[in-house]
């Protein structure tokens, strides 16, 4: 009996991605694995059941959960779904480990081997498995488009028969993967872009895209490519300098995040109040609380004459490519351990071991253990 890899429809509302795309399905089959797909799993991302052939199709998600040895998912499975799994099932996908106490209990109890790609060590070799990066790239691009689309102004400079329109000013706060992508996209559209981040090395990175760096004199270099939280004093200084840049811009895109925590609030209500009429804010961090005071996740709110957009499920706005990237990341993560139709995990592998949330009834990840108080 070869390894059965299962994929279900995503149940989270607003989620349109799928953890397996036809191209990648063929590769799994090439490794000798059998595929079990809930019928219509890819349809929200425009992938048709027949494209996955010769994967086996299941009429409902339940049978997939019950039969599969490995389950690929985008959003974490709910507790009920987890209860359906065979003992020893391997789960691969995003698991929101920092808010997973209840799920972890079930995972341990059912002896499920759960890989949380949020925990993936950020080493060079793991880049091709890094769903956070790939989905952040999608999100950054989308947020820039949302900003341009909602702005009541042109982004590019435009000389026309009766005059000249100066280019819009776009400010991007947080220059991680998503922020840089947003900068690049806004630049492409012709806007005058500045970028800001607490990590000092981002200055060169922002400038390498032809944008300006807003220098506040505050640095928050953390470890592993992530940022640390700032002290209050630093926050005040940052706020002062940033406030000015924010007041000047026509569109503001915020992408700041600190892994495992609520997103930092960087743009205060007072800053928003100083923005120009008709300015637009896209808060990419809305789902984790938002970088901007007043953001409501999933809504567009007006604060004075400023529109604050708090988009959620951003990669789902681009399900075809977001799924494609996601599925390839998962494949790169798990495929080294599939040999001749069998899954042989190698606990010596630092990437695999590092991304493991639970295995054999244990919560394996120290950071998560601490965060959940277990």
């Amino acid at each position, binding site marked *: 009996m070869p390894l059965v890899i299962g994929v279900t429809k995503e149940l989270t509302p607003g989620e349109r991605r799928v953890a397996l795309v036809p191209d990648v399905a063929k590769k799994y089959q090439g490794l000798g694995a059998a595929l079990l797909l809930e019928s219509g799993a890819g349809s929200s991302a425009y992938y048709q059941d027949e494209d996955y052939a010769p994967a086996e199709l299941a009429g409902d998600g339940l049978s997939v959960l019950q039969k599969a040895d490995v389950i690929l998912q985008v959003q974490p499975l709910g507790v009920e779904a987890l209860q359906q799994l065979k003992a020893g099932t391997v789960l691969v996908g995003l698991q929101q480990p920092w808010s997973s106490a209840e799920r972890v209990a079930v995972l341990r109890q059912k002896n499920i081997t759960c890989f949380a790609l949020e925990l993936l060590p950020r080493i060079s070799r793991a880049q091709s498995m890094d769903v956070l990066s790939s989905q952040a790239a999608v999100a950054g691009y989308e947020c820039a488009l949302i900003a341009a689309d909602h702005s009541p102004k042109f982004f590019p*400079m435009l000389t026309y028969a009766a005059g000249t329109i100066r280019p819009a000013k776009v400010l991007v706060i947080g220059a991680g993967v998503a922020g840089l992508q947003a900068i690049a996209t806004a630049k492409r559209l012709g806007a*005058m872009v500045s970028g800001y981040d607490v990590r000092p090395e981002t200055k060169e990175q922002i400038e390498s895209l032809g944008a300006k760096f807003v220098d506040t004199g505050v640095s928050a270099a953390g470890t592993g490519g992530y940022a640390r939280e700032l002290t209050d004093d630093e926050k005040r200084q940052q706020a002062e300098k940033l406030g000015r840049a924010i007041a000047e811009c026509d569109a503001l895109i915020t992408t700041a995040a600190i892994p495992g925590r609520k997103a930092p609030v960087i743009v205060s209500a007072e800053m928003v109040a100083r923005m120009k009429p008709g300015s637009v804010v896209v808060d990419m961090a809305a789902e984790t609380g938002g970088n901007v005071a007043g953001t409501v996740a999933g809504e567009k709110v007006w604060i004075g004459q400023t529109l604050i957009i708090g988009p959620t499920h951003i990669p789902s706005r681009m399900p075809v490519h977001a799924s494609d990237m996601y599925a390839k990341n998962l494949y790169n993560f798990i495929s080294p351990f599939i040999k001749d139709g069998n899954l042989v995990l190698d606990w010596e592998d630092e990437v695999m071991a590092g991304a493991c949330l639970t295995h054999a009834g244990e919560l394996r990840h120290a950071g998560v253990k601490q965060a959940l108080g277990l």
Partner: protein
Amino acid sequence: MAMKWLIDASYFVAAILFILGLKGMSSPVSARKGIVWAGVGMVLATVVTFLTPGMNNFALMLLAITLGGAVAWISGKKVAMTDMPQMVAIYNGMGGGAAAAIAAVEFARGEMHGVVVTLLATLGALIGAVSFSGSVIAWAKLQGVMKKAFRLPAQNAVNIVLALVTIAVGAAIVIAPTIDPLLVGAFFVLALLLGVIITLPIGGADMPVVISLFNAFTGLAVGFEGFVMGIPALIIAGIVVGAAGTLLTQLMAKAMNRPISNILFVPMAGAASGGEAVEGEQKELGAMDAAALMRYASKVIIVPGYGMAVAGAQHKVWEMAELLEEAGVEVVFAIHPVAGRMPGHMNVLLAEAGVPYEKIFDLEEINGDFAQADVALVIGANDVVNPSARTDKSSPIYGMPILNADLAQNVIVVKRGKGTGYSGIENALFYKENTRLLYGSAQQAIGEVIQHVKAMSV
């Protein structure tokens, strides 16, 4: 002996200085150093010549030098920049005259050794005399002293016959065992006449080429007389100038798109020029001149138009602008409201090429600046710089505001040919006195300009 050695050595140094001087003058960077070096060589050679043993007539010599030198120096200082070409012509003619006079002295002394020396002396005399009288005519024409272009009925035939006769007389002098003063006299008269006859029919526009040719002639003449008198400094300087001058003449003729033969030999079929365009002629210039004009300008305004878009030349244009800026030139872009074929057409392209927004100005912002610009570079634009929009009520573009490119000191227009623009009308700007056309698709034309700008910035 020591004196002779000193003199020879000085001549040697002078010769080197002349060569280095010319080399210097062939690059804008070192040109001024070049003339100074050559000047030092000249002073050195002149001063040591006074030390030559066995010389007489020092008073006369000093008088001649003072007189000739002073008059030339003062007139050279005073003359307007625009009258420079004729001054070059006349000074060059004097050099040719001097060479001829030296030959005359040698003939008068009757001391020539051997056929070769006589041959060289005669050749030098011929060339020098032609250069002398021809240059005087060239000067007279450019100066406006002589107005019309005189043309004999069978100009070419007359030229050739006269030349053959002169050469025959010269040959007779060379072959004759002793020097016959009559023959020599006739020879000089013929040679001088030849210079006049050749130069008379040549029109003003071709004059620079002819002057350059006479310059090469004088060089050769000086070189030949140098052989006759055995002074290597004269030989080297003369021949180097002769060779350099010949090349230069070719280059100039090429830059003007006129083969030298066309200039010297009058076309057989009737009158030459005759207005083909109503308001004058489109004057072409080469990429190198365009490059030099901009490279040595203080301010250049670039006016892009639809042609730049068609050629996809925006990257090249920006590269050129960057190079010019590195060289200290101020470069800005002037975007006309309706340049191209859609609102913002030029913006899209310039953004694509990476031109920073601060360098881009619209019509209202920039129109006052053209008068202060040394060069307006119009790239594939036509209607948007057509002055008839200002004045000609019948023009389809009457009333449209235009970019005042015509107010710049120099206008360079890059286009492929005589194509009109969107409105399909002629553009008087292209025929203006201070406008030059750089023909070619913009991408390639600007590419060439870039190459030359780089060469000038070494």
